[in-house]
């Protein structure tokens, strides 16, 4: 099966091409094309995964481009991480394809939506089976394109246009970091291949500073893609896209690509303590930073978006603390429960046609399927025991503690508290209490939308049991098998960490219940005490304003300065060139005044000059 794994990304590509060409005629039947092709990918991915359990890593490559003596290759590789990612991506993609059939019904550009989904899925699957950095970069940019197109799907909305542009440019800033790091690494290791880079690192062929530098540059790429601080601002804005897109791209798959990249290059990072520390610090900071913003947002999707940013920070913290397994594990569980939360949120939005949680309330009774599923997702992300998020978060905390990052460990614990609080704040405000606005005609979504949620709901509960300290760390052992550079499959940690984690999440839930569920605490007892911090949080620390003030205005300033240069200096040059030319012409034409005597004079003077030159040089010009 693995020899033909290259076919997995091709199914969605076919779907894209087919729908771009014939989508107009197919109309809403396009959905079936998209669903069928992704189903094929999913089935094949599962087969490959099962194959990989028993077989070693498979890799095949061919020459893509020759530069002098250097041959750049392209191909695919199926190792543990890749096989796992293939399944996660194709599964979520398949579920979102199915869900969208209900969600996007009636949209004019229905086939285009499916075509874009196909393009994105193709790029994402291509990304996760890339055997080298160059190919990874290739698909890395293409997933960015898919994300851009889908964020800007409602292109006639000014907000969507701005969000799409912002997403593309912000991630591109990160991509340039990745590009530089990758090229520097190439000239050091002589190859883009992961294997050869790791071999060079291990052999000590690359200096320590260079490893740190390239690792950090590559991490900048991951920061851009995974919405880590300070390049995180595009991700919440990306919620302008249709909700299934948010679930697929901006929760489960593409934004996790940054984490995937760091994981795929883990031996490089592991070789530099500074690089690891950078990853851990950025991750932990982002986790708590985004979680604090999530506490006060009012848009259901934005809360989830900040939660995504925060959770990605967790994964980075794990990887930065040498917890390879913890990071990948959380990536997997997060993909399921966050996709579930987004799809459930989409189902809510589909029912009430608003995204403002202030306007919702009391939906539990009306949405009998969505409500419980949303609750499952919320419990999972909050780290309540027995749900998947509990196990993976626990692994991360243990990794951080075991690596000696005590400060970062406590930051992560606080972030876990915040997470539990804002998620249950969301849940209580949406589903409990009384409807705050007039809600008529609220229906549960059709089964084509609820079924994918049910699948994800099941996974959000059980996915954690592949790697638990109680029943065995199957996933962890399998992931690091045959590769000592990735660290241990399971890191033993003190039991009290699990207890603390459980305690803070329950505390967060309890507080949220007091404020938004039981309402024994007034909703604004905190905000009224700290109006300043509330407005700072509500305005997302004014990061956007800061950027527009510095970076955007800076670019505009440089441009206007250069425009002045262009107008005065360069145009001046043009003017002088044309001026001199026409002045010479005018001077020449003065002699052609029709007066025979002028002509005679000119001829005579010319002759005289020639004679003088001849006399001085004594012959032809030498």
């Amino acid at each position, binding site marked *: 099966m693995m020899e033909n794994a290259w076919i997995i990304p091709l199914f969605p590509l076919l779907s894209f091409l087919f729908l771009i060409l014939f989508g107009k005629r197919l109309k809403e039947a396009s959905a079936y094309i998209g669903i069928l092709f992704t189903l094929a990918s999913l089935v094949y991915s599962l087969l490959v995964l099962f194959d990989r359990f028993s077989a070693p890593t498979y890799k095949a490559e061919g020459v893509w481009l020759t530069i002098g003596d250097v041959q750049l290759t392209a191909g695919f590789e199926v190792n543990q991480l890749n096989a796992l990612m293939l399944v996660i991506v194709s599964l979520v993609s398949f579920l979102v394809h199915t869900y969208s059939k209900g969600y996007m019904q009636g949209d004019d550009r229905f086939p285009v939506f499916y075509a874009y989904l196909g393009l994105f899925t193709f790029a994402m699957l291509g990304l996760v089976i890339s055997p080298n950095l160059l190919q990874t970069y*290739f698909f890395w940019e293409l997933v960015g394109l898919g994300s851009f197109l889908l964020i800007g799907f409602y292109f006639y909305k000014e907000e969507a246009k701005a969000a799409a542009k912002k997403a593309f440019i912000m991630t591109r800033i990160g991509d340039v970091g990745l590009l530089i790091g990758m*090229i520097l690494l190439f000239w050091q290791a002589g190859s883009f291949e992961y294997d050869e880079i790791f071999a060079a690192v291990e052999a000590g062929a690359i200096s320590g500073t260079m490893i740190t530098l390239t690792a950090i540059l590559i991490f900048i790429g991951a920061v851009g893609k995974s919405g880590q601080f300070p390049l995180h601002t595009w991700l919440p804005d990306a919620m302008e896209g249709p909700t299934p897109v948010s679930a697929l791209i901006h929760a489960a798959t593409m934004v996790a690509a940054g984490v995937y990249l760091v994981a795929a290059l883990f031996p490089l990072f592991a070789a530099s303590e500074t690089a690891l520390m950078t990853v851990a610090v950025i991750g932990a900071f982002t986790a708590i930073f985004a979680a604090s913003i999530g506490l006060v947002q009012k848009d259901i999707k934005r809360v989830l978006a900040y939660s995504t940013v925060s959770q990605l920070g967790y994964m980075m913290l794990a990887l930065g603390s040498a917890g390879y397994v913890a990071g990948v594990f959380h990536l997997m569980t997060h993909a399921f429960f966050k996709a579930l939360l987004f799809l459930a949120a989409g189902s809510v939005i589909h029912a009430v046609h608003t995204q403002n949680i202030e306007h919702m309330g009391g939906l539990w009774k009306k949405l009998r399927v969505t409500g419980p599923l949303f609750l499952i997702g919320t419990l999972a992300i909050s780290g309540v025991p027995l749900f998947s998020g509990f196990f993976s978060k626990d692994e991360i905390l243990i990794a951080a503690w075991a690596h000696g990052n005590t400060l970062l460990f406590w930051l992560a614990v606080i972030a876990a508290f915040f997470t539990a609080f804002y998620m249950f704040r969301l849940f209580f405000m949406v589903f409990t209490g009384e409807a705050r606005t007039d809600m008529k005609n609220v229906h549960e979504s059709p089964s084509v939308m609820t079924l994918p949620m049910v699948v994800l709901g099941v996974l959000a509960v059980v996915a954690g049991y592949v790697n638990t300290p109680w029943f065995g760390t199957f996933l962890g052992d399998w992931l690091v098998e045959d590769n000592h550079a990735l660290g241990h499959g399971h890191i033993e940690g003190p039991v009290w960490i699990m207890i603390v984690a459980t305690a803070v999440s329950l505390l967060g839930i309890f507080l949220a219940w007091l404020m938004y569920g039981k309402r024994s605490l007034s909703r604004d007892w905190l905000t009224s005490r700290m109006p300043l911090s509330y407005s700072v949080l509500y305005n997302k620390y004014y990061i956007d304003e800061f950027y527009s003030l510095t970076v955007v205005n800076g670019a505009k300033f440089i441009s206007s300065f250069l425009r002045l240069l262009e107008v005065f200096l360069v145009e001046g040059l*043009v003017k002088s060139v044309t001026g001199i030319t026409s002045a010479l012409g005018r001077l020449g034409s003065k002699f052609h005044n029709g007066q025979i005597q002028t002509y005679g004079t000119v001829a005579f003077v010319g002759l005289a000059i020639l004679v003088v030159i001849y006399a001085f040089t004594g012959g032809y010009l030498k």
Partner: protein
Amino acid sequence: MNLAYFLSILVFSPLLGILVLSFMPRTQESLIKTVGFLATLPALVLSLIAYFQYRAGAGLEQLNEKVSWIQFGDSGQLGNLFSIDYELGLDGFSLIMIVLTAVLSTLAAIASIHIKKEWKGYFMLFLLLEVGMLGVFAAENLILFFIFFEITLIPTFFLIGKWGYYEKENAAYSFLIYNGLGSAVLLIVIMVLFARTGTANIDALMAAMNADNPQLVAPISENMKMGMLIALLIAFGVKLPIFPLHSWMVRVHVQAPPSIVMLHAGVLLKIGAFGLIRFGMGIFPEQFQSLAVWLAVLGVVNLLYGAFLAFVQTDFKMVLAYSSISHMGIVLIGLGALNEAGIQGAIFQVVSHGLIAALLFFLVGVFYERFQTSTIQNLGGLAKGMPITAGFLLAGAMASLGLPGMSGFVSEFMAFLGLFKEMPILAASGTIGIIMTAVYLLRAVLGITYGKAHRDFAGITDMKKFEFVPVLVLVGLIVLIGVYPSVLSEPLTSTLETIMLGIGG
């Protein structure tokens, strides 16, 4: 491929069209356009034959032609015979350029459907321009090269000055003055080389200039070589264009009819890069090496300068004009790197930008035809009224900003790969250009296509059938090169080897 005079037939085949056109009444609009289009086809077919034969393993030497033309001097005395021959020949690089020229000429002839007046004169000049462009790339002799170079100048001048927009005369004159000065400088270099060595054949010159004791009529000092290289740099720098010699080109891009800009941005600008690689690098390899750093610096300056200025333009054509300047910076960066990756990147960029610029300007023509404007503000929300055009515009922008899977990425990537090896700091500052490219292109293209519709699109038809042909061909080629770059890199292998041998790399 053992046809005698294959290359001559290829180069001069458009003349047949001129001949036919000259016997036609000037009012037969559609007939003239058809003939004009058909006259570009022989060159296209022949160049494709040559390309595929070459890919199939046939040697290019058998295409060389040589006819004795002008001779003077003392043939008895060794090295004192001055001869100018009519010599045509191809290597991998010029073959690719000829294919590019032929393809773009055919597509530009299709785009010329939008021309509104005096079709007869237009197409005669158009075909003459094609002869000039094909000849420039096929010439094996500097003097022949110069003649063809001048042949491109005159038709372009009239095509801009007569069929352009409001300030066409102004644009045509600044085109002529700048390029005329550039030609004059080029002529001086050619004449000095010819007078000193007695030959104008490019291969013979390369050999003569690089052997230690050449049979020179008069020796050339190192300083003089350097001077000549700088003169070449100026001559071709005007064409490319290199900052600060670029402003004529902005005017031409804005004022010329889109079909001519397709050729101008697609091929004519590339003569500058072609000349720099062929003559600058080939004839003066040592001097070129010592100038390489400055070339790279100029490249980064071009890249950033063009990008930042494109960021504040309000007219889409201006954005594209400055974008061309910015992209030519990549060519200079690649040349400045002076290693295989860099030079190959530069050549890729030459081809890639030719295709992308042609695509974008064709699309400008498509919506200019319908709205009589190319101001970004006035076009907002185009995707609502013309979704297909808007889609292709977005595709063009993506290609231009170097999205992987399209040709722009491969060239940009290789140029930077090369420069990072030699001058990492400079290269790192150049990468700001990559970000800025995305910024200005998205600003312009999203400004046109996305957002609220600023105008009524009722009665506006999306792209017509004949408009699909050029767009699909160009997008197809761009993607082909992006996905399968060997289609370009393999024919280039031997050319690159020769160059690298020259600079001792």
